[in-house]
Structure formats: structure tokens, C-alpha cells
């Protein structure tokens, strides 16, 4: 059933909140009292509840079923974390209350920082970035600040980025004023080490490498890459989007990286429905630690203290990335997730994630075309070779999965293979779920091979909406409701 827009449901004079109707004078409003109405619709509380309930029913989440969206680490979101995040004394704390009244909050952030540093074997972590891309910005700004500190910022302007990287990597480099130089991949899906070395030079600021990479593979020459970039005077930014494969098994600090962001909302499972909020703390090596942004926590004589402005003389913070002190609500949930698992459980979780991905690989490789041989990490990459001559595209195949009750994998990313299908099962999924998924994909492939392309072209048919016209949406954008237009 179509659900109207909230603007189509309202009526003047209704409200879903009861508040006193006080009059105010204009004396203290600087002559700027609003003249017209805002235009918000009036609804009763029951109407609002029903509207958003119905909208939610048009959505698919992890709670609904398997969600193997590659590179997004869609794992179980524990509900106890939601409960904890709402505790009085945590969820209701004001960011500007005196630190003497927020010692528990600072302890919490400091404890989380300790877990992160220990898991990464890194000496420092900047907590404030609000998301993965924000963390990238933080890391690259720290690199830039270090280069400025060395007086080489005007020279070292080039950043090396593998062609398999997420789009945010080059976008971040650009946002920091760097130019981007793309490194090709080998046929094993890794950085072409020779090509990489050939690109090194005195103008190189550093490399942005995702490891495990976006093909779901561990960069087996990562230590050599680190050594080489360091030898060339550059820094090693590691994109930690795929940290879930190695938590408790491999510590980034042992690989020679200089900075890496963690997607707390992905790896450590905080709900980020609809695409956020996230949190992207960045671990920093000794070389970059002094440039960490404000604010940060220090252990003072009266307990924890929050440095919001440059204070100690060794610190050379490159600035501030965000209002206040970071995504506390995400910190709480991430720390609860970590503590629940413990050192043992986190290690088990990453192993199970890798096990699940390899199981999919093993059980599907005779049907679908695995892009690269060998063991994968926590996600497995297929390309559309197996669909050759069927008339079925990656997109069609994905849409058909929806009708079978599954959220599709990531499509057409990474760009290094044709018609990519990137599957990330995560550790949350039981073997039975994977088995059902495997059976379904095998069935769909049989259907594709049988020549029934139309079945795929028609899909999905069981969804609230069928295929949507994205071209029309972009050509003549309608980005809001308005009283006349709709």
C-alpha cells in the first residue's frame, strides 16, 4: 500500500505534542519575528506513529534478513547497547558541562581509546571523526600537518591510491589539497608492487591503501609497501573499512601503517540505519600522534581532563574536525560491543567473518565466477563472467535476489573487475542462513543459464516498489515536496 507523504496527511490545527500556548512580545526578538507559517503539517500522535510504522515496513534491515552488502559490514546490532546508550548520566549529558561533572563520560572515551589502541598496536587515537570518510580526512590532515612541520608540504603533494579504492579515498586526498595518482592492481587483485615503487618520489606525500582491500584480499606485501613508502619519505594511510576481517588477529601497527580510521559503526556494530550516524576514530603512529586534532583527553591530577584548545607544548594539533568531542553515542555502543566480546570474542568474530566469506566462496565458486583465486578475507568478490551470454546483468541478478528475501550484495564495486558482486556475510550469520543463501543463488544461476532472462529483468516484483527510474530522478530533480507540485 502506498503511504502518503507526511505533508499529505496533515491538517491545520492538529498537533502530536501538547505544549502551553504562551504569548510572547516582540521586544527581544530583534525585529525578526517570523511573519509567515513554516508550512509544517499538523498530525496527531497516532497518525505519526502509523505513518512511520508503515514506512519502516517498506525497509529491509539486518533484523529482516541476510544483508551481505560487501564492504559495509552489516552485522547484528545488539539491543543492550541501545539500552546502555540511553542511560541517565550518559545519553543525556551535555557536551559543555564542566568536566568535573562528566568524569564517567571521559573515562568511557578513554577506555574505548585504550581498546582501540590495543587492538591496533598504535600509540594514539584521534576520537572525534564522525564517520569513515571523516576519519580519512583526519588522517590525511595529520599527514599534511606532519609534512608542513617538516617543511615539505609544498613539495609532497601527490598521494598514491590503488584503483580498487573506495571513492572516498581520492575525494579525501583532494579535499586535503593533494593530487591523486592511481596505482594499478595485479591480476591477483593486489597492489602492483612494481608499479607502486615506480611511482615513488620526492613529491609523494603518502599512500592510501585499504587492507584487507576492497577485493576482499589481504595485501600480502603490505609490510614491503610500508617500508617503501617510508623510505621514500611518505606516510602510510590505511583505510580501515575492512578491519572486521582481522580484529584480534592482525594489528595494523605491526604492519607499519601511520594512520588508519576505524568505522566503529561497522566493525563494532552501532546502528547506522539509512546511512549514519557513524564514528571514524583514527589511530596514529608516533610520527603522526603530535598532530592529532582537538579535542583530546588527558589524565590530569583531578581525574580526566579534556583538552579543547592547544595546551601542552609538544602537541601540534592540526585543528578541529567537528563540534564538541566526537560521537559519544557511537562510542558507548562500540565499547559495549567490544566488552561483550572481549579479546577472545573479537578474535573469534573476525575469524568467523572470514570463515563465512570463504564458505560462500567455496560453495559458489563452481557456479559463479570468483574474481581472484585463493583465500579471501571477510568478503568475497565475484564478477559477471558467469552471466556471460545469459542476457542477465549483475543488476538484474541482484534484483532477483530481493524477491527471494535477501538483500543483494554490493554491485559494480570495486571497479577493478567487470560487473562486480561483492558479498560480505559477517560473523553474525549462522551456517543455515548461508546454506539457504547458497541454495538460492545456485537456483537463480540455474535459471539464468536456462535462458530465462526476462524473469531477472522483471525483478523485483514482491517489493513495495519495482525498479525505479533513477535517470529521470537525476535529470529533473524533485528533491522536496511542495504544496503545488505534488
Amino acid at each position: 500500500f502506498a503511504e502518503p507523504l507526511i505533508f499529505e496527511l496533515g491538517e491545520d490545527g492538529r498537533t502530536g505534542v501538547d505544549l502551553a500556548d504562551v504569548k510572547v512580545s516582540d521586544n527581544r526578538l530583534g525585529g525578526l519575528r517570523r511573519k509567515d507559517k513554516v508550512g509544517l503539517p499538523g498530525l496527531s500522535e497516532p497518525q505519526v506513529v502509523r505513518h512511520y510504522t508503515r514506512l519502516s515496513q517498506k525497509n529491509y534491515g539486518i533484523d529482516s534478513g541476510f544483508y551481505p552488502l560487501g564492504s559495509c559490514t552489516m552485522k547484528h546490532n545488539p539491543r543492550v547497547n541501545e539500552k546502555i546508550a540511553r542511560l541517565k548520566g550518559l545519553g543525556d549529558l551535555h557536551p559543555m558541562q564542566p568536566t568535573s561533572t562528566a568524569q564517567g563520560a571521559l573515562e568511557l572515551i578513554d577506555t574505548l581509546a585504550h581498546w582501540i589502541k590495543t587492538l591496533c598496536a598504535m600509540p594514539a587515537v584521534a576520537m572525534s571523526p564522525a564517520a569513515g570518510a571523516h576519519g580519512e580526512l583526519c588522517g590525511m590532515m595529520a599527514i599534511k600537518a606532519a609534512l608542513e612541520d617538516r617543511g615539505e608540504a609544498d613539495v609532497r603533494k601527490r598521494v598514491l591510491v590503488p584503483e580498487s579504492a573506495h571513492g572516498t579515498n581520492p575525494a579525501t586526498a583532494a579535499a586535503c589539497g593533494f593530487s591523486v595518482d592511481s596505482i594499478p592492481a595485479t591480476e591477483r587483485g593486489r597492489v602492483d608492487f612494481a608499479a607502486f615503487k615506480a611511482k615513488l618520489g620526492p613529491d609523494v606525500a603518502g599512500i592510501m591503501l585499504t587492507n584487507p582491500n576492497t577485493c576482499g584480499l589481504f595485501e600480502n606485501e603490505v609490510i614491503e609497501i610500508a617500508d617503501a613508502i617510508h623510505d621514500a619519505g611518505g606516510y602510510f594511510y590505511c583505510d580501515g573499512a575492512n578491519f572486521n576481517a582481522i580484529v584480534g588477529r592482525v594489528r595494523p601497527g605491526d604492519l607499519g601503517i601511520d594512520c588508519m580510521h576505524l568505522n566503529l559503526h561497522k566493525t563494532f556494530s552501532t546502528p547506522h540505519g539509512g546511512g549514519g550516524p557513524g564514528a571514524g576514530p583514527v589511530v596514529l603512529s608516533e610520527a603522526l600522534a603530535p598532530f592529532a586534532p582537538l579535542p583530546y583527553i588527558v589524565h590530569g591530577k583531578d581525574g580526566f581532563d579534556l583538552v579543547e584548545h592547544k595546551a601542552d607544548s609538544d602537541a601540534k594539533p592540526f585543528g578541529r574536525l567537528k563540534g564538541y568531542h566526537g560521537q559519544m553515542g557511537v562510542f558507548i555502543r562500540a565499547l559495549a560491543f567490544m566488552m561483550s566480546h572481549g579479546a577472545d570474542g573479537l578474535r573469534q568474530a573476525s575469524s568467523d567473518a572470514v570463515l563465512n566469506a570463504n564458505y560462500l566462496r567455496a560453495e559458489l565458486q563452481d557456479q559463479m565466477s570468483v574474481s581472484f583465486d585463493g583465500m579471501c578475507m571477510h568478503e568475497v568478490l565475484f564478477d559477471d563472467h558467469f552471466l556471460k551470454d545469459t542476457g542477465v546483468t549483475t543488476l538484474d541478478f541482484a534484483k532477483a535476489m530481493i524477491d527471494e528475501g535477501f538483500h543483494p550484495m554490493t554491485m559494480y564495486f570495486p571497479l577493478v573487475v567487470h560487473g562486480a558482486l561483492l558479498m560480505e556475510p559477517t560473523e553474525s550469520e549462522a551456517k543455515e542462513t548461508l546454506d539457504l543463501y547458497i541454495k538460492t543463488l545456485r537456483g537463480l544461476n540455474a535459471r539464468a543459464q536456462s535462458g530465462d532472462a526476462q524473469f531477472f529483468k522483471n525483478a523485483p516484483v514482491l517489493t513495495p516498489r519495482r525498479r525505479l527510474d533513477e535517470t529521470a530522478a537525476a535529470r529533473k530533480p524533485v528533491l522536496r515536496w511542495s504544496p503545488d507540485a505534488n
Partner: protein
Amino acid sequence: MRYLPHTEQDRKDMLDAIGAKTVEDLYCDVPQKALLQAPVDLPLAVGEMEVERTFSAMAAKNLSPSIAPSFLGAGAYRHHVPATVDYMVQRGEFLTAYTPYQPEVSQGTLQYLFEFQTQVALLTGMEVANASMYDGATATAEAVLMAARATRRNRAVLAGGLHAHYFDVTKTSAHSLNIELVHPDSDPTRPADPASVIDLIDDNTACVVVQSPDMFGRIIDLRPIAEAAHAKGALVVAVTTEIVSLGLLEAPGNLGADIVTAEGQSLGIALSYGGPYVGLFATTSKLVRQMPGRVTGQTQDVEGQRGWVLTLSTREQHIRREKATSNICTNAGLCALAFTIHASLLGEEGLSRLARLNHANACTLADKLAAIDGVELMNDSFFNEFTVKLSQPAEEVVEALAKRGILGGVPLTRLLPDRNDLKNYMLVAVTETNTDADMTALVQALEEILS
């Protein structure tokens, strides 16, 4: 472990299917010396009960603004959020979904984002809005970058009343892209003067950034500044840290703004010690293709039914990579949802009442405080927050209030630490959540402390 479904038998069966003997075999591409042989040195797994105990103990070490009379603002405001908001946000289909890459199974997310965009556009008086950003500060920084792109100029004038964090964040971003920032000193001791900003606009100015109510709570008339800026070909970025104010104050879109950025925390979102919040970003149709961030658009499906998709992605990184309008990839979806539900519950009438109630309470407290010996009200105009000058250093007064269980205000030097001249100034915010008893407690405590 309660979150991990595999039994040892499952693991064995799966390894067999893979053709591996042990889990370590799966990690064969990791350099041996980097592969840990044992868990790291952190505590082992604990049950839910123990986790709750640990966090409850940390919570107990904080002074909760739900219990203490609280007058803290400075860009984050304690409002009453109807229980409905949080219940709806926590529905699994919303909570555990991700970016709506597959629109057919994401119409819920897409439709609420479309509603959110519309609400933001209506509130700010602008034509379009994006699907949210991290917070008000980063949205403002992005606005300056966008203005520089759109005007191909690299200088921005930031009015003195801009929230210090917003300024700092903008400075950090601008530094990377060599955008020059001009920022006259913040001065709450004199009335806000448009001329001080107007005089700084030149032909290379990409934009003027003006916050209203400003960091000191003053309501700023954007119109003369906008007129001057537009005359020089500069864009006007209007900033609001308290979105509830727009229930009572003129929308910046009606005062000449080209871009409006705001902090949306006040509607639906827990204070949560500073985040996650939601950045609002609105602009004109003309500038829409320069706008950063995700955006939802209306379209039709193959059966001609109305539906929604992410659109204008040619601005974004996964298409444009280093040429994207911004590096921002995620939005603040759940926070945007909370904002939208709260705004929907309020509606026109509710928002208007809420805004009036805030202002009325602020007027009441301002008068009460001004009557205290040793307190001077600095503001001629304000919405729900104002600056007072105290007869003693504000940081000490705030600590003394905290000892009495009152969260009394924000010392201006917490935001502007270099401004020793402002050490006796304190920001005081009042909302609908403050009772008469709260106000009386603050007044009495201040009288004691300042006497």
C-alpha cells in the same frame, strides 16, 4: 558467545567445505610475523548483565542534566523529546538498514529522507536541502567550501558571532584548500554591528557566514549583510545552532541567505555528550548541483508508482572520486529520522508553541538573573540563550554551581580560551524543560555565590 551463531561443529564443517584445516589457513596471505597467535591483552568476554553494570557505574560518575537543573546551551540544547520519536527510530527496519542502495527495499528510508529534506527546506525558507550531514559545524565548513567552488573565489568572511567550534572546523577545512578566512573578533560587549562584517567583503569574497542567534544569543538581521554580499557577488551562508528558534524567528531564506546550515540536534536527538547530532544543509535550486552530501529525489517505478531514490550521485565520490563535491559519504540517517519524526509530531502549531515557550522562559530567567547583584544581562535580543556578565570569573562560578548540583551555564572562555577579557561572561540557555523550580535554584545559588 551470544552474538556468534557458530558451534565448533559448524566451524569444522565449514573449514572442511573450504578445504582448510584451521582458521589460520584462511589467513595465509598475512605475513606470518604479523599474525597474532593469541588474543590481545584486553579483558575477556562478559555477559550482558556485567556490561550493563560497567556502564551504569560510569554513568553514575556523571551529573545528569535530567536530574540537575541545567542551563547549558552553546549549540546543544536540552529539549523534551516525545517518547514516540525514540520508539520509532528503534524499529529494526529503520535501525538496522543501511544506505538505501537498493531503493526497492529502502522506500522507508528514502521517503523519510525526502520528508526530512522538505522539512529542512520549509524551516530554513530555502528551496532544497540535502539528506543531512554530521553536525552543524561540519555543515558550515562544507558550505564555505561549496561557496568557494560555486563562486570560484577563495576568501570567506565569518562574522564574529559564529560559534567557536564552527569557526575552528571551517578553518581546518579551509586550510587544506587554501581558502582565506577573515574573522573579526567576537565581541559580546557591544551590540552586533553589521558594518563590521560588511566592511570586510571584497570582490574575492566567496561568502559571508553569519550565525543568528549568534554564539552570544543575539538575533542578527541578515538583510543588510546579504545585500552587501550579493552586491559583491558573494554568497550568504546563514547559520543556526538552535533550529527551534525558526519556529519564532524569520527564516534565513527570507532574509537573503543562499545557503543555510544548522545544527538539528534540538529536534529529536539526545544530547549524548555532543554527538551524534545532525547537520542541516539547505540552499537554492540554482546551487543544488554544487551541494555536498547525499540527496533523495522523487521518481517513478516501472509501473508508474511514485517512489524515491538517491539521486544527483554524479556529485559524489563513488562516481566522481577526487572530483566529488565533498568527501562526505555517510549522512546521519537515524538522527535525520529522529528529527523528522519530532518535527512531524510538533507540526506547525507544536513548533510555534515550543518556540514561544522557550523564548518566554528565557525572558523570565533573563529578568530574574539581571536582578541579581553581580549579574549583568548583555543581550538586547535573544531567543532561548543569552550572555551575562558576572562579578566573578565564570569558570569558578560554574564550578561552584556544579558543586551545588546545578549545571548553570557555559563560561565564554570555554569556547574562546584566549579571550581573557571575557572571563567573567557566561552563556545561559533556557528551554521548555526548565521548571520554575530550576530557575529559582539557579537564582538562589548565584545570589549566594556572587554575594
